[in-house]
């Protein structure tokens, strides 16, 4: 319950404040958001599996975001930023898909 309310509050805050994205954050934010989404779906799946642990969730969330940022940064430095970002998105997308599939099996038994 509180989790859903937190998500709602975050979205509303973003809509109301409409913050400018700082220029240094601009390349990292999209990947970080996708990485965080992956962590959230993983957590939801673990919850449905009955093995959810808030500590693990927090750690995985933060580390996902950090690793995504580091990969983008590294890619930019190596001159393959675009390609590496695409790779990260693909991997995270695959993970999100498999997690969502597991969540679907739990909720719809199908």
């Amino acid at each position: 319950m509180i989790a859903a309310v937190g998500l709602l509050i975050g979205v509303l805050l973003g809509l109301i404040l409409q913050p400018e994205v700082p220029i240094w954050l601009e390349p990292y934010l999209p990947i970080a958001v996708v990485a965080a989404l992956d962590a959230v779906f993983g957590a939801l799946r673990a919850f449905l599996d009955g093995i959810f642990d808030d500590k693990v969730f927090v750690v995985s969330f933060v580390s996902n975001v950090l690793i995504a940022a580091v990969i983008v940064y590294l890619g930019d430095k190596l001159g393959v930023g675009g390609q590496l970002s695409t790779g990260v998105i693909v991997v995270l997308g695959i993970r999100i898909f498999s997690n969502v599939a597991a969540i679907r099996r739990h909720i719809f038994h199908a």
Partner: protein
Amino acid sequence: MTDQPTPAPKQPPPAPVPPSDGRARLLAALRRPGSRGQAAAAVLLAILGFAAVTQVKANGKDDQYVGARQGDLVQYINNLSLASQRTEAEIARLQQTRDALRSDTRSRRTALERARQQADTLGILAGTVPVVGSGVRVTVTDEKGGVGSNQLLEGLEELRDAGAEAIELNNRVRVVAQTSLKDVDGGVMVDGTVLRAPYVIEAIGSPHDLATALDFKGGFIDEVQRADVDGTVQVQESDKVEISTVVEPAAPQYAQPGATG
């Protein structure tokens, strides 16, 4: 998947009987206010929602050049500078057109001005416009009826000699090139209008010249005041003589402009 490999399944402390089914557990969690784990998840989800919305907004704003490759950016700049060159050429062309039109207008205005001045001059000469200016007012009284077209004609010619630019008789007839005088009973017929004494000749020109031209031996004044005519002449110089009568310009029927020189 790999992020949640918690080896020890967590014992949910508040629920007395942990729901074995995933869906039941989710519904139960939604119904309950939440535990410490949910609070942590709420904070992280709030951050995620905030970041996602921010990113969506930033993405929707102006993303044409963000993340564009160097080659693309160079292409954009080239396109823009080409467009600006084209626009500048267009501006120069339009300015030229504008200048041409402006000078055209100016020369047309000059021509119009000149034509208008000429029309004024010709109008004064032809007697088609009212005129005002310095000049003389000559009043000829004629008790005996001796003053006729001869005397008046002489007066008019003296005035013309002295440079009169416009002449009017008795405030009724404008004297122009075609003016004719004829003696009739008790007066003089000028251009079909019968004038009677006293005759008032108003002439515009240099007042002194005009007055002098009338008054010399054997001139107009002598002629009128001769014993057999016995009129009197009074010449009055004035700074403001008004001539308001005009003649209708008659279209020439026979004469046509010929080649000059």
